[in-house]
């Protein structure tokens, strides 16, 4: 059994690695034939299971993109729903290959926790949601409030900083699972629900009367959310990183899941030909097949498509997540 596995790895390595030596996690992904992806337990727009247990959301699509790039099949993904508390341990231990769970990029996580952030899927910031009938218009009026949030998040730390910096007291009520936070906030256990503004928009759909709540104007932190891999596999880091860039680049070039097949055949633009793998050797450098980017866009879509499909329904405008050409922060490094 072990012999077969080793042989398979050896063959896979020989097949893919001409420039770079495949990393251990990459090997594992190829030999097991799927990407084990850590996602959240249920956050509409990011990763949410439907009644049949099929996952959707922008974080889920990133996993699918990585699978398309590495294995050529966007469906070769298995999902591990994780609570915020479990996610880093699961990644550190190797329980999952990629963590794509609206995770904030911070220095500590990038270094001491033994993790590598591959990029940013969504620029976000922490906000507050309150009941409209509370009559509060600013987060600075929240002195003495009870605040519901998730365990093991940057939110917990930012919240402490914010209240301390403004000389306000508060009562933290910290749950392990997001659904319990929402249930407790909805039950009136807390005056305030705080998490990333995208999370507020998403979880709002799970409230009994979404219209009775409002998000306060203050955004108290920077929350760049992106996929994470463990230290020790640069090749996988590259693959995930360039999956994001490929999605952005595709949007910039106007390549979508619908037109890419046609454009690959007829478009003479060398950048497009390079992107789909008809020219150049981008895939080789990454240790992936030549059509890796083509697979991502054709099977999953470009960033704008993902945003339309997943985030727009929870009523979040693109804002800072627009392309740099449209005044946003999304900027793909050149694919060449």
């Amino acid at each position, binding site marked *: 059994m*072990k012999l077969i*596995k080793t042989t398979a790895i050896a063959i896979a390595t020989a097949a893919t690695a001409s420039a770079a030596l495949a990393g*251990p996690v990459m090997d*594992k992904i190829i030999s097991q034939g799927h990407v084990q992806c850590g996602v959240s*337990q*249920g956050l*509409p727009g990011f990763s949410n*299971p439907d*009644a*049949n*247990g099929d996952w959707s959301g922008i974080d889920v699509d990133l996993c699918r993109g990585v699978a398309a790039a590495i294995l050529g099949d966007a469906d070769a993904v*298995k*999902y*591990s*729903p*994780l*609570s915020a508390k*479990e996610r880093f*341990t*699961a990644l*550190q*231990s*190797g*329980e999952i290959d990629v963590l794509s769970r609206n995770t904030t990029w911070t220095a500590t996580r990038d270094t001491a926790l033994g993790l590598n952030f591959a990029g940013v899927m969504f620029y976000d910031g922490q906000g507050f949601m309150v009941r409209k009938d509370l009559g509060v218009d600013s987060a600075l009026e929240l002195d003495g409030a009870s605040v519901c949030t998730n365990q093991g998040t940057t939110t917990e730390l930012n919240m402490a900083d914010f209240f301390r910096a403004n000389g306000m007291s508060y009562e933290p009520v910290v749950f*392990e699972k997001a*659904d319990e936070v*929402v*249930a407790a906030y909805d039950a009136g256990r807390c005056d305030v629900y705080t998490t990333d503004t995208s999370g507020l928009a998403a979880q709002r*759909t*799970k*409230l*009994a009367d979404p219209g009775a709540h409002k998000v306060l104007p203050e955004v108290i932190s920077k929350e760049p959310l992106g996929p994470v891999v463990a230290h020790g596999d640069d090749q996988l880091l590259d693959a995930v990183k360039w999956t994001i860039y490929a999605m952005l680049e595709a949007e910039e070039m106007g390549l979508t899941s619908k037109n890419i097949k046609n454009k690959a055949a007829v478009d003479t633009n060398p950048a497009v030909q390079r992107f789909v793998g008809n020219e150049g050797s981008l895939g080789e450098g990454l240790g992936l097949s030549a059509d890796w980017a083509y697979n991502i866009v054709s099977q999953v879509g470009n960033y704008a498509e993902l945003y339309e499909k997943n985030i727009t329904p929870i009523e979040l405008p693109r804002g800072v997540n627009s392309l740099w050409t449209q005044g946003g922060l999304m900027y793909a490094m050149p694919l060449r």
Partner: protein
Amino acid sequence: MAEKYTPGTHPDLPPPKNLVGPAAWIRDNLFSGPVNSIMTLFCLYLLWVIVPPLVNWLFLNADWIGTSRDDCSKEGACWVFIDVWMRQLMYGRYPAEEIWRINLSYILVVLTALPLFFKAVPSKVKGALAGVLLIVYPIVFFYLYVGGSFGLEFVETPRWGGLFLTLVIAVTGIVASLPLGIVLALGRRSEMPVVKSLCVVFIEFWRGIPLITVLFMASVMFPLFVPEDLSPDKLVRALVGVALFSSAYMAEVIRGGLQAIPKGQYEAAAAMGLSYWKSMLLVILPQALKMVIPGIVNTFIGLFKDTTLVLIIGLFDLLGMAQAAATNTDWLGFTIEGYVFAAFGFFVFCFAMSRYSQRLERALDTGHK
């Protein structure tokens, strides 16, 4: 006018009216004194406060028929919610067209287990059936549920859920922990100091830590402890955690049985020239295990209830599934119905088992202490 009887021929008179009948029963059992009367009134008040609203909510004002939340008035329970989600609550996200596999296994288990409850069935047949239940079925069902061979479609374990998953975890836990528990119990009573202390440490360790930490470590930390290429399925790891955990409890139950066997039995077995294993397997264990069947059933009940903790590590058992259903945006606000249904499911199993164990306890109680 009194009739006359010769001495000794007077027929038995009925007891005085105030000593028989409902009135007397009520007086004796409910109002035999001031304290008792107050208690009775208090109990009646309690019942009056609790029962009518509960019945109203559960049955009278409840909505039973429909397909969406609009079919539910807000006055009583919305059983439509349970009805719509029934498949998920029972089988999780197991593919609909493959559910016959699970039902088939249920039918097989019931058919095999049924004869065990009848006295008329000879004990040899019973033994064979028990062997099938405990050894053959686990293997067969593994292939049946997982699929991927014998032309069955492969169903990955994250799709397993609901009551089905609860049963899988509880039954695997008990089937695996029984032999392990026997070995540990024998080890703890062994005369070899090293073996004995290893078993004591093992048992006390697992009995001392909360199951939730065991499950946490099994689900996310396990790969850290083993070589890189060893990575069993998450459900399998949770099962191993549960089995090890309950084996420690099982060991203590069985040890109780071993201690209750009179020393003469050990000595007699030794005098017959039986080796250690033979004397254990043929003489001691059959007696000891029979004695602790109620304890084993109780351990099983505990295990059955503890399976709910797997929802904390992201597996959807009956309770987890009920919660997941209640957070579906189309079905918000029916959390309590979900909890009540899950409670009903657990209660049916646990209550039946505890009644069974009490009956066994009485049947096995031969009177002498």
